[in-house]
């Protein structure tokens, strides 16, 4: 059993004092006690996550707290693995063992929405566990039988059977990221995300979604988990790699001839690159990628993975490499085949022109003179009701649909006048809503940082310029302080501004955002 511990935590134990201490206290005692009926079982926990989000439209208000139930599994070193979505925006996370009513509070060690995984750290109450933590599976193939573990109504571990139907890079549910996932057919309804999936008593993955009507669901597989755990156990967390370009299949024979692609059935077309990434340095729109990191790329974007079979090339980046790696790429540029090297980075949502903010991070905002100034995000747009695409102003929709991931320069965002909270100081301006702010106090702004910097330097917000509006919106600065006090009290705004503390990399690291 001791071997099981080292199989996952491995040689890095000594590098991590926090984990090592925990292990000293708990490492030997915890794994071996058999269950009540004598059989050993893997350490499955029920995860009870209370969460609360900021109102996406009114960023100083919080929505009513709610609770999600799911599962996690002991992965050793006093850590429990679960899904990022389960613990998203948590205010309290508690674990419950099988057959137990006791709720054990835990902390989130790290979470990454790009792969929907989170690591929880158990406190001192870890003693008394009767379960072992399973090794990670080494290989799970299509059509292989697996077991899904969850609690039944008597809080005992229930084993359902499942079969791997499909392996692919799919967009994660409740997220905007594509990641390697396995589609399973199950014989039970999976009651919560994070339910561990076992293959021959090894951890094959965690369920991230389940559809009761078709009895199918998706899991994050062991390979992603291994990568995540390896990374999580060695600070700083580096995250998953990205290159920073958009591509499209290249099937059209006419187009293939136009780009002078001779290799049959091979090659995808580069459409655009994200400024500031390795792709922007090495790739250009209209390049045709023939080989990526030693693998030939088919004209639909698939390559043949030794382990998983046919996968899209993004797995070569996200699943086989880490940020900072440099990979060789063969491509056709202006009709000639050339070799380039692309440096991989960690592409984070917040560098997009319009970040999605799927995790619901608190948006930065400034309320002065009733003008609510904030950054445009995908979450903000999608919060405009079920028909948000029609409800949202056409100009913002156009930007979101055509340029959201492509700032013209690094750091560029869309700053908007979200709305005006009516007050005598802003009479005449109250109908402005969802307008793009181009200038603050007469100076150009490209993100909220600029807004805060200008306002802090000038001491106050004097006025804003709006896109295509030929008259500046100006405020009576001498009355602003008293107006702000009244606004804060009238509209119950606890903070008239929220700015993410500078150097909040730690917070980013924890949120994986």
């Amino acid at each position, binding site marked *: 059993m001791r071997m099981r511990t080292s199989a996952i935590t491995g040689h890095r134990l000594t590098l991590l004092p926090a984990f090592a201490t925990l292990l000293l206290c708990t490492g030997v005692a915890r794994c071996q006690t058999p269950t009540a009926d004598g059989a050993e079982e893997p350490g499955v926990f029920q995860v009870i996550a209370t969460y609360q989000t900021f109102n996406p439209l009114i960023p100083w208000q919080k929505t009513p707290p709610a609770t999600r139930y799911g599962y996690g599994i002991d992965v050793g070193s006093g850590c429990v693995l679960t899904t990022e979505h389960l613990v998203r925006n948590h205010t309290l996370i508690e674990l419950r063992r099988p057959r137990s009513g006791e709720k054990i509070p835990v902390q989130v060690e790290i979470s990454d929405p790009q792969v929907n995984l989170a690591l929880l750290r158990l406190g001192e109450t870890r003693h008394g566990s009767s379960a072992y933590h399973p090794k990670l599976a080494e290989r799970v193939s299509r059509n292989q039988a697996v077991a899904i573990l969850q609690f039944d109504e008597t809080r005992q571990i229930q084993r359902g059977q499942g079969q791997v139907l499909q392996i692919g890079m799919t967009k994660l549910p409740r997220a905007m990221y594509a990641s390697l996932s396995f589609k399973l057919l199950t014989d039970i309804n999976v009651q919560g995300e994070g339910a561990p999936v076992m293959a021959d008593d090894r951890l094959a993955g965690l369920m991230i979604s389940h559809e009761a009507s078709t009895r199918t669901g998706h899991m994050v597989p062991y390979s992603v988990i291994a990568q995540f755990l390896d990374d999580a156990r060695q600070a700083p967390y580096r995250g998953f790699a990205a290159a920073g370009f*958009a591509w*499209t299949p290249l*099937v*059209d024979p*006419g*187009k293939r*001839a*136009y780009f002078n692609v001779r290799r049959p059935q091979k090659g995808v*077309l580069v*459409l*655009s690159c994200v400024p500031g990434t390795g792709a922007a340095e090495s790739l250009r*729109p*209209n390049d045709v990628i023939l080989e990526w990191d030693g693998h030939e790329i088919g004209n639909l974007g698939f390559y043949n993975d030794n382990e998983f079979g046919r996968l899209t090339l993004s797995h070569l980046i996200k699943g086989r490499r880490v940020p900072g790696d440099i990979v060789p790429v063969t491509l056709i540029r202006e009709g000639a085949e050339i070799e380039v090297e692309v440096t991989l980075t960690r592409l984070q949502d917040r560098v997009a022109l319009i970040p999605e903010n799927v995790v619901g991070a608190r948006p930065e905002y400034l309320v002065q003179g009733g003008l609510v100034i904030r950054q445009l995000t995908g979450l903000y747009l999608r919060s405009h009701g079920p028909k948000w*695409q029609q409800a949202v102003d*056409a*100009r913002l*929709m*156009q930007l979101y*649909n*055509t*340029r959201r991931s492509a700032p013209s320069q690094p750091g560029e965002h869309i700053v908007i006048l979200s709305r005006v909270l009516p007050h005598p*100081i*802003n*009479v*005449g*301006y109250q109908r402005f809503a969802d307008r793009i702010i181009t200038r603050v106090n007469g100076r150009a702004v490209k993100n909220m940082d600029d807004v805060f910097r200008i306002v802090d330097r000038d001491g106050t917000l004097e*006025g804003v310029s709006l*896109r*295509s*509006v*030929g*008259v*500046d*919106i*100006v*405020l*009576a*600065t001498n009355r602003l302080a008293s107006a702000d006090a009244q606004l804060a009290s009238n509209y119950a705004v606890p903070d008239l501004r929220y700015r993410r503390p500078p150097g909040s990399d730690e917070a980013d690291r924890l949120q994986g955002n």
Partner: protein
Amino acid sequence: MHESISKYGILLLCLLVMPVAPRFSRAAQPPAAPSSRGSVVKIHVTIQRYNYLLPWQGSRPVSGTGTGFIIGKRRILTNAHIVSDARFLQVQKDGDPRRYRARVTFVADDCDLATLTVDSPDFFENLHPLRFAERMPELDDEVSVLGYPLGGDRLSVTHGVVSRIDYSTYAHSAVDQHLVLQVDAAINPGNSGGPILYKDRIVGLAFQGLAWAENIGYAIPLPVLMHFLEDIEDGAYHGYPELGVGYLETRNPALRDSLRIPDGASGVAVLMVDPFGSARQILREGDVLTDIDGHAIAADGTIKLDGDVVIFPEILERKQWGDSVELTVWRDNGELTLGVPLTNPYDPFVYRNTYNVRPRYYLYGGLVFAPLSRGLLNVAVRSRNVINTHQLQYYTRYAKVDRLYEGCDEFVVLVNRLPHQVNTYAQGFRNGILTHVNGIRITGLNDVKKAIRQKQDGFHVMRFANMDDSLILDARAAEQADAEIMSAYGVSSRERLRRLGVGGN
């Protein structure tokens, strides 16, 4: 006037499509005398809309009815929306089984009005034209509505009071705003074009309803009717002249200070000058309009007119094309008086609904290119699975505001694809706005043909606005495919490049 800075919020449906259950009118009432009833005629119309996706053919002809009334000089006044795109038009008097062939003499899409005439000499015999009132009724004055709504064949009369007089968008053009008369009398499909009478005199013409409301019916009020009749006196309809400014009220003292409006003066600040409006090259952004034709403009944009408080564009509502308006403007710390001649140029970027104008298009390699229009936008928005509609919405709403029109005569859209081997992989470009063909900037539909015709071999490379991918067609293959595509899909002609109107009847 139409709004340069656009407004949302009011959804109006034409009476022809208003989903309101029929209501039966009360028994005959005294206010409408027999003579006036005889002048209210039923209009039988068969219309055929254009097909914007298959522009070489029309859509299914449909028949309907509306109301009109005789106003003398062998003229029948009705709504433009009843007779727009009409292919066959007849009128019928109450209690008379004969239907007379009618034709449209004038049509005004911006205020939803039209005049018809009947060539048959005996039609107007023994008919007494309805007379216009001298002035508008007041709120709460009782009015009667005459017409031929659903629920029966004969003339119907309903009663109500004037509930409100206000500005509203005219649904027929979708962009124009004028005065409307709101009444609580039952106005149902088929009432459109019927007279609203106050003391037996015309004060309005029933024209639209509010979809989810009760007892709200709208009529085109007397001043708009008179404006139309005055406009056509010279034998042509010119339309309402537009000043073409978006403005911001200056009630905010800080704004007044920053605009340096002197004490005692007031006005509105110009936010945007419509590049196709009358005030282009005369007014500038940041100007403060303080007076219009001698009426002082208040900080909220209202003026006093005939003892009433109205928004200042009401002055424009009373002008005819070719008139001028005098504006006093506060600019650069000084006062200017500017005369603005009111003659609007042709504006391809206003995106009114158009009628009786066949859609232009150009077909190549199974790809149908057409200029962006409101008709096209409506089709795209209605069909759920069509991509890139957000872009068409942005371009129609913001063409002038965000200066997207610059360097363009019109926006050319890939509206449809007739599938054929040559264009199999072009589906992602549907509803894209074409910017370049073979490196040539596309400023209008004619450019597409020119750019394509210049190249016989190799590849046509088409670029679309805000799209990273290019559409690439093998030139020879596309050329050869055309005959096959046209025959397979029943395309009668590969192009209609010139603007062609078609008579209503």
